[in-house]
């Protein structure tokens, strides 16, 4: 009734049969040929790439009647005993359930016994990273004085959890994920032996879902064989619960057209029809990544490993979209992929994710938004001011300059505050300042910018000042703030720093004097909530609010704008 699964049936028995671990094999065969086998190895690598298999082959190589040899015979009593797991001198221990100090102490005693029939006692400890710290320390003593005739093989999927002190006493061989092409080759071989017909597309799909693990690939092949001995891509897709490409394209199309009602309807249909919605995010991630690639790359075929017609389909789908929105949507689906594993009702999370993604529709780069906002604000001559300079002063400027910035804006609350600032640039209250500074042939804004290089908080305070002229040889800077005494008092403590910056800029000694501004009634009102209110009605500001899911928290002059706009 029971049957041996492919992963066990085709478990390699010799180094030459191992799939895709050439450098490991070379190292071990050389060691065996030269009689320089280490007393302890760490075999690390992802699951199902051959760690335990290699450990058993090495055991046979050491204990074969003809051994030590890189080509164990496989038929002598020692070899067969190891294969069937009954060898007294090859001890497989699972580190997870023998992780304590007591087990390792027992092991330390046990290694003192001579091998009974074989030449070496081989201890294979799987999942060795599960050992406790104390257990590792106990192990260390044995590794420091390795008994002859004992070889340890520590297999682990997580070498970073092995203490350096242990690692440094072992030879570390790292097992790689196996390239897709190698897996396909191996699967083709096994299918032929098993008398299964399998289409190239199905072969590719099997290799893809197994993510570099031979065991995974054979496990899935086994599943497919339980389904049919004639394996085609469509059947495999159904068996693996992978959503059909058509459905994914349809969903993506609805999203890129901003059709929220359509999205909800489609998800409902999928759900009603009994689809596994948990399988979608991973495929959506892959689709949006591909869309991004066809949008950016000149020759996407070289990056995508997809048939030509599929690339054409991708291009058609990407036609109406911007790279920026695709990126943000990809990011949304990456989050969804992580989250959908643990929710009770995947449909609702998927819907939410699509709704959130739909807000990203029409997103373009932050820089182009800023440009649009600024030009839309009626400020001519923007070109003369380098864009970087115009934004570098405020926190928003930093976000624009760094990569993850736009992505963060997708999270509704976190990014709203700083993003609101560029919109809140009152253009009406700074006119005279520019004239004053130019008369002084020293731009206050340059001074502020200079200070900003060393002291950002101070620069922000200074940016609120206006030069009112010179008074007694000192540059008179006025501040219209609600609590001028306190504010100016705090500035005066940094007077030296400001004067230094100003002097360096002017090339001569400059003195600065801070004063409270004579404030008009209307200005007062506009620094308060009313100003925020008023500015929120501006259509450009409104669109900024829409794009960033923002709100206006503060209104401050933007000096770059002011400088040019005021001329």
């Amino acid at each position, binding site marked *: *009734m029971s049957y041996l699964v492919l992963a066990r049936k085709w478990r390699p028995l010799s180094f030459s049969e191992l799939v895709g671990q050439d450098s490991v094999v070379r190292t071990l065969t050389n060691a065996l040929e030269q009689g320089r086998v280490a007393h302890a190895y760490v075999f690390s690598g992802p699951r199902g790439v051959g760690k335990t298999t290699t450990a058993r082959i090495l055991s046979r190589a050491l204990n074969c009647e003809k051994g030590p040899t890189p080509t164990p015979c496989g038929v002598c009593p020692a070899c067969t005993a190891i294969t069937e797991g009954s060898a007294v001198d090859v001890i497989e221990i699972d580190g*997870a359930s023998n992780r304590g100090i007591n087990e390792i102490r027992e092991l330390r005693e046990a290694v003192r016994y001579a091998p009974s029939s074989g030449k070496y006692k081989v201890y294979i400890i799987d999942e060795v990273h599960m050992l406790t710290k104390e257990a590792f320390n106990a192990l260390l003593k044995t590794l420091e004085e390795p008994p002859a005739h004992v070889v340890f093989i520590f297999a682990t999927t997580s070498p970073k959890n092995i203490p350096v002190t242990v690692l440094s006493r072992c030879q570390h061989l790292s097992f790689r994920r196996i390239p897709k092409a190698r897996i396909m080759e191996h699967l083709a071989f096994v299918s032929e032996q098993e008398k299964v017909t399998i289409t190239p597309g199905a072969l590719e799909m099997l290799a893809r879902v197994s993510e570099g693990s031979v065991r995974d690939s054979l496990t899935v092949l*086994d599943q497919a064989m*339980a389904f049919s001995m004639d394996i085609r891509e469509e059947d495999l897709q159904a*068996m693996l619960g992978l959503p059909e490409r058509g459905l994914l394209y349809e969903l993506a199309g609805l999203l890129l057209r901003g059709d929220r*009602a359509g999205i909800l309807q489609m998800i409902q249909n999928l759900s009603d029809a009994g689809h596994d919605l948990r399988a979608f995010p991973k495929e959506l991630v892959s689709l949006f990544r591909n869309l991004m690639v066809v949008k950016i790359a000149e020759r996407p075929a070289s990056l995508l490993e997809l048939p030509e017609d599929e690339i054409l389909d991708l291009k058609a789908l990407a036609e109406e979209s911007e790279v920026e929105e695709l990126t943000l949507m990809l990011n949304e689906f990456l989050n969804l992929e992580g989250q959908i594993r643990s929710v009770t009702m995947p449909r*609702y999370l998927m819907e939410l994710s699509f709704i*959130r993604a739909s807000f990203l529709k029409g997103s373009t780069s932050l820089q182009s938004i800023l440009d649009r906002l600024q030009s839309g604000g009626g400020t001519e001559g923007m070109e003369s001011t380098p864009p970087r300079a115009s934004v570098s002063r405020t926190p928003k400027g930093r976000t624009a300059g760094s990569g993850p910035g736009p992505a963060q804006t997708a999270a*509704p609350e976190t990014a709203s505050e700083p993003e609101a600032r560029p919109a809140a640039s009152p253009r009406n209250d700074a006119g005279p300042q520019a004239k004053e500074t130019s008369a002084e042939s020293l731009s206050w804004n340059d001074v502020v910018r200079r200070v900003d290089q060393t002291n950002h908080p101070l620069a922000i305070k200074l940016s609120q000042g206006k030069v009112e002229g010179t008074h007694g040889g000192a540059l008179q800077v006025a501040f219209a703030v609600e609590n001028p005494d306190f504010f100016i008092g705090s500035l005066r403590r940094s007077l030296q720093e400001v004067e230094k910056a100003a002097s360096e800029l002017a090339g001569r000694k400059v003195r600065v004097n801070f004063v409270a501004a004579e404030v008009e009634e209307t200005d007062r009102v506009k620094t308060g909530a009313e100003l925020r209110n008023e500015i929120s009605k501006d259509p450009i500001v409104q669109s900024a609010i829409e794009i960033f899911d923002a709100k206006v928290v503060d209104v401050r002059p933007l000096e770059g704008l002011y400088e040019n706009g005021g001329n």
Partner: protein
Amino acid sequence: MSLRQILGQEKAVRILKGILERKAVAHCYLFAGEEGVGKDLAAREFAKALLCGRVAGDACDVCSACRRIDSGQHPDVHVMGGEERQIKIDQVRDLGEALSKKSFEGGLKVAIVREAETMNQAAANAFLKTLEEPPAQSIIILVSARPDLLPDTIRSRAQMVRFYPLSRTDLMAALAADSALDQQELRASLAQGRLARALEPTLCQSRDTFLEGLRQALRDTADADQLWKDRDDIDEWFDMAILWLRDCIALKASGSASQIVNVDQASLIEQMSGQASLRDLSRVLSHLFQTRDLLRFNLNKHLTFQHTLMHLKSVLS
């Protein structure tokens, strides 16, 4: 029951029957699919089919072996998990020991691991050897509604049999068979393809209780202690709240009541969330999902309540 009687899982049943007919039973399967779609049932029926003394390819349901498996009394069927929040290493060891003996009645030995994702790390790791090369004549069936939460090393050793949410048609058919169940349209909607959920007698009632509690909470006339008696209550409440917010969004985004899951409550949904923007609703729903996920940890009940209510109040009235 028998395999062929399992509702709405034609694909899975076809695979299982194929395995039985070809007599090619692998040593380890993973039955994966949403809660309440029939995985545990299928695991038991598969075990019966494997050990049934009378027919081949399915369970006869009447022989001594079938009946003893149904009543949990078969010496060669071992069931683990599904009772505590975690499966611990000792349970895994005991199972390994039980499988190391030849079968009591001479056939196969079947181990069913329910809620396999609840194995803690040590247990899962300790299971790996057994899963890879179990003692002869042993078949291990892992059952999980969250297969993604199992370690890769376990998943890679098991043949996955997928169970899908039931289609609405299948759900309605199952419901129609039991006229004692009220509000069948609503049940089918609320259950989201989970048959067991659709058949819960109090399903609609608990939705109504939730709704009443929500409205009271929004009016500040209910507190955490009234709404949530234990952890399961909180989980359930959040699931309902997520669904409610989701409906508000669906109504707003589609402009039609056809997308609503709480099919009987369109006007209340409209009334409660009419003022809020789609964006704000989405934001609050994101919060609910986050908090729901954090319930895995022992959150302070009152803080959780206040925090959640604050968000809900910003969009619901």
